């Protein structure tokens, strides 16, 4: 009988032995080494053991009887110290064993982040039963707190298990959403919601700086300076193939042990299987390909031919109550098309990615009923052209006539609830429409309350009206924000507030976006609305901003940038001018230009030079002029009463004060101010978004002017007596615009849309409303007045400034 030595008693080698004994129990005398003091168990079921939903005994795959029955010599708890290929022996801690064939199945080891404190007691990885038991032991401490580093599959399962065992758990995750390798942003949002619903805190975009503690772990410090107290830290950030033994033996090793399709290493008598192998550049971490490898290897050892091939994989999470599925490639790309289905009430999201009439990727959350069917379509590359219209609804919808959404509504019974918020059923709406002669959505809202609260049933109510009234239904003429939604800007803004939606994925899921991640129209708009409505809580999503706002400079037609530092009220000094001159010389800036907003524009700057230029400008006291921003840009002033014979007030002083008070605020579109010291209006205040014309009796506030594509004189808001009042009224006005404006809607268009009288009523006549707007503006400024240039000099978003080809976006805005 030939001698087979196997190093590692994991799932891959265990499955290989099963196949081997099943096919020919007498082919080999097997010796099995395992560093763990036990045999093969179902490692992927450790999470339910951690949570208490399974016992260890249940997940043992091969017990002592199985090994004895198959005459396997078990050397468990014994490390292999070397392999002597010349003598064909494996050296264990307790002696050598000769082999004819050798299988290396050393698996993988957890990746440990190289941070200070990683060796402290209480810091564990999550790989085997001992790790699991260490975590269970830690849950025995009263009020114990755990931090799980890593929001991937393993990290989430660890967190849920520890929480179930009674711990306070925080997950810290480097990426923007959980399980970013398997899920898109939308599914990641739902997953986070489900995880948080278990009382687990989730912090994304969090980078671990150090693990704190003296004699044992006491907390985790993050790069942003925050500290999370912890009695247990679980590192679940990934695995590394364990290939050192093979490397020391002189076998060919790349990122792991290199094998061919027969699982053979560079030594023909040595094979490798499982997570320790690399095949055609691919590493393996999920169990399905490991089992395929095991089958191939068993055949190879028995002299039968077979070849391992890499197949599509799917992902499932073992957290009870979290239903998710992911398979294939769901990255966006040219020629790819998304089909998206969302059901906010049930927390369901489905996305299919199609390329050349083939399903290439699927992400599902909350409803995984058809996951196996979709996986089959991806794996088999089946042509789905015939099913295109109904594909998203799953297998049971195929073969029939395409779904007509109106017919589906017609088929609903009269007692079907249409408006969940107000408990209004189909029969009530139809009866009200029929008997009361209602023809508009507003009528139905007024009479039945349907669609009058959160508004997500609006589409359903409109379909009911179409069914009942036919062409007599007067559909609202509100244009949707973009192709991703049927909702208009106002409705979206209202729902963001009423439903307290605080992230872009939350908006898209809860408002039933028709695309997975939005588009270039809705993402910047949503980002602005969220910045505006939740200044304290919302984390600005820079990826949702146009290029100018991402790099804090204006891209020019040749791909270079222009740089405009802020000059408060248009005033400058010789020192500032020298600093600008030095920067121009140092960086060979080809063009310098005075702008219409009383500032200096340096043109032709290379992208990679921007941070260094900002650093030099910052040393001279400059901050960003936001010449690129949908935000406050310039405050143009005349010299006012300080110098001018006609000046009635200190217009320069007021301009500087306004600019210093309001800079940094994001607005729906750019906002330019001007302050003129007298009605001669040298600062041209009467064509600005907001202007002040100083008069002997005080300050005349103007707004809603335009001097760009449209030319329009300002409207007079009113007269105030003091500078303080001018600042309060103007801030309140801008805040009102910030809260009500549609993204990219200039102030003059906004004011015309909602009515000049309404603006005057709220700002000039309603002191309470004005005060509330002002207070909200002041609150918002606490989070807005951070100089983006100095942030980037400190290293923020440094990837944006690496030298590379720039592709100007189709819409390039003027600097001022």
């Amino acid at each position, binding site marked *: 009988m030939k001698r087979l030595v196997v190093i590692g008693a994991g799932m891959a080698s265990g499955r290989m032995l099963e196949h081997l004994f099943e096919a020919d129990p007498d082919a080999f005398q097997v010796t099995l080494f395992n560093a763990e003091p036990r045999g093969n168990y179902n490692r992927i079921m450790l999470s339910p053991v951690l949570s*208490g939903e399974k016992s260890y005994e249940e997940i043992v795959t091969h017990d002592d009887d199985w090994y004895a029955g198959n005459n396997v010599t078990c050397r468990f708890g014994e490390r292999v110290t070397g392999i002597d290929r010349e003598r064909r022996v494996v050296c264990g801690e307790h002696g050598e064993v000769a082999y004819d064939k050798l299988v290396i199945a050393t698996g993988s080891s957890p990746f440990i982040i190289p941070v200070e404190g990683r060796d402290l007691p209480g810091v564990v990885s999550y790989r085997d039963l001992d790790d699991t038991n260490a975590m269970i032991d830690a849950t*025995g401490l009263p009020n114990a707190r755990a931090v799980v580093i890593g929001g991937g599959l393993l990290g989430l399962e660890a967190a849920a298990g520890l*929480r*179930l065992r*009674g711990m306070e758990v925080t997950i810290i995750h480097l990426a923007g959403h959980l399980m970013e390798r398997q899920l898109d942003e939308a599914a990641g949002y739902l997953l986070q919601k489900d995880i948080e619903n278990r009382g687990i805190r989730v912090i994304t975009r969090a980078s671990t700086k150090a693990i704190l503690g003296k004699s044992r772990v006491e907390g985790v410090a993050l790069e942003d300076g925050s500290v999370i107290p912890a009695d247990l830290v679980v590192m679940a950030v990934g695995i590394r193939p364990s290939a050192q033994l093979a490397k020391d033996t002189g076998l060919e090793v790349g990122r792991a042990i290199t094998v061919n399709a027969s699982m053979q290493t560079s030594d023909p008598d040595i094979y490798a299987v499982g997570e320790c192998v690399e095949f055609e550049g691919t590493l393996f971490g999920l169990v399905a390909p490991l089992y395929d490898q095991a089958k191939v290897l068993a055949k190879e050892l028995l002299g039968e031919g077979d070849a391992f091939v890499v197949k599509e994989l799917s992902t499932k999470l073992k957290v009870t*109550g979290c239903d998710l599925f992911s398979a294939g490639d769901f990255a966006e790309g040219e020629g790819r098309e998304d089909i998206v289905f969302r059901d906010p009430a049930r927390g369901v999201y489905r996305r299919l990615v199609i390329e050349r009439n083939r399903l290439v990727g699927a992400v599902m959350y909350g409803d995984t009923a058809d996951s196996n069917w979709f996986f089959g379509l991806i794996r088999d590359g089946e042509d789905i052209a015939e099913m295109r219209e109904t594909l998203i609804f799953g297998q*049971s919808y195929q073969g029939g006539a395409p779904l007509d959404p109106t017919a589906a509504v017609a088929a609903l019974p009269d007692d079907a609830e249409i408006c969940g918020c107000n408990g209004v059923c189909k029969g009530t709406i139809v009866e009200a429409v029929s008997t009361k002669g209602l023809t508009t959505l507003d009528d139905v809202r007024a009479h039945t309350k349907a669609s009058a609260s959160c508004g997500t049933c609006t589409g359903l109510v409109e379909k009911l009206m179409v069914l009942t009234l036919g062409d007599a239904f007067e559909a609202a003429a509100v244009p949707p924000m973009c192709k991703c939604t049927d909702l208009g800007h106002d409705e979206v803004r209202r729902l963001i507030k009423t439903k307290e939606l605080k992230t872009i994925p939350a908006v898209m899921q809860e408002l039933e976006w028709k695309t997975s991640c939005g588009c270039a129209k809705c993402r910047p708009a949503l980002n602005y609305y969220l910045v505006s409505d939740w200044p304290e809580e919302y984390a600005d999503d820079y990826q949702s901003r146009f290029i100018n706002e991402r790099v804090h400079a204006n891209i020019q037609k040749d791909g270079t940038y222009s740089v405009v530092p802020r000059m408060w009220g248009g005033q400058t000094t010789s020192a500032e001018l020298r600093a600008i001159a030095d920067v121009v010389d140092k960086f060979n800036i080809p063009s310098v230009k005075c702008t219409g907003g009383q500032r200096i524009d340096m043109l032709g700057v290379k992208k990679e030079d921007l941070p260094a230029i900002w650093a030099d400008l910052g040393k001279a006291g400059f901050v960003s002029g936001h010449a690129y921003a949908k935000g406050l840009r310039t405050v143009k002033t005349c010299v006012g009463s300080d110098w001018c014979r006609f000046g009635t007030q200190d217009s320069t002083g007021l301009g500087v004060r306004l600019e210093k008070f309001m800079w940094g605020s994001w607005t729906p579109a750019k906002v330019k101010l001007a302050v003129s010291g007298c009605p001669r209006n040298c600062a041209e205040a009467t064509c600005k978004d907001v202007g002040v014309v100083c008069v002997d009796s005080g300050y005349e506030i103007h707004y809603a002017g335009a001097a760009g594509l449209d030319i329009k004189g300002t409207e007079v808001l009113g007269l105030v007596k003091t500078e303080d009042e001018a600042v309060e009224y103007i801030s309140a006005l801008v805040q009102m615009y910030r809260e009500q404006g549609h993204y990219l809607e200039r102030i003059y268009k906004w004011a015309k849309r909602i009515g000049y009288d309404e603006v005057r009523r709220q700002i000039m006549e309603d002191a309470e409303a004005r005060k509330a707007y002002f207070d909200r503006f002041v609150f918002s400024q606490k989070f807005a007045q951070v100089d983006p240039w100095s942030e980037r000099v400190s290293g923020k978003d440094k990837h944006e400034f690496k030298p590379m080809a720039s592709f100007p976006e189709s819409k390039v805005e003027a600097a001022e």
Partner: protein
Amino acid sequence: MDAVLDKPVNTFIEVTEVWVPDGDRLVLDSGNYGTLKEFATISGQESFAKGEGLPGKAWGEARPVVLKEFDGSYFKRTEAAKAAGLTSAVAVPVFSGDTLKAVLVVLCADDDVRTGAIEVWTEKDDLLMLEDGYYGAAKHFEWVSQHTHFPRGQGLPGGVWAANTPMLMRDLGSGYRFIRSDSAGKAGLTTGLGLPVSVPGDKTYVLTLLSARGTPIARRFELWDARSAKVGSANDAVLADGICTREGPLWNDEKERRVSAWQGLIGKVLGSGMPIVERDAPGIPAGYSMMVGLPIYQGVELAHIVAWYL
């Protein structure tokens, strides 16, 4: 080994019965009374209006009800129960949306050795608090439980609440919650079944059945997932978890076990949407004589089925 396992044991629950609406009253649909023939006969002659007796109270108040003292209570079969040695009862209403499908009633007999727990947890101030529970002889565990609350996601009750799904816990004594595990271990509690009880309105209820090795509630538990989000439009259910003292683990992470409506006893629950109590019926696994199948609704959808066997 089987001979040891299969010998008759004192069980925590003596009687299990299903009451179903018939007009404006609840009538007996099925039951397992063991040797308590007289109590079975009297129960068969009984019916309850809404709010009347224990089943009627669970219906009327739309909540699980624990009754630990029959004397002087609203319990209608007190004399017969006393004659049968029954001392306590728990009634669990099964609602599909606002519609009552049935009331499951279990009755227990007190003595010094029977331990186990049937607990009703309800949400208050974002915590699950013990509304009531029957523990038999596990007095210390009862006291501990009365002084325990569960946040979302913690422990069996908190886990069921957060996931809105039934859960089956093993090795209770080794700690699913620090405070209770020690006491659970001393009481001999080994396996815990937790399930959400759906009722009209916005109240949250979680029912837990904690079984001891010596006086088990059951020796085999099964959880079936029947949600359309899992099985699609087919009226099917897939085994999500299960444990059996004879067969060991019933779950299989590689091979799905699936039944359709009316296929076997689980299929009967799935097809009818009603709880069942079966004794010596075809389909009960070898070594067992009694089975309870309880549908778990989420709104109007039959979402899960839990089954336990003795």
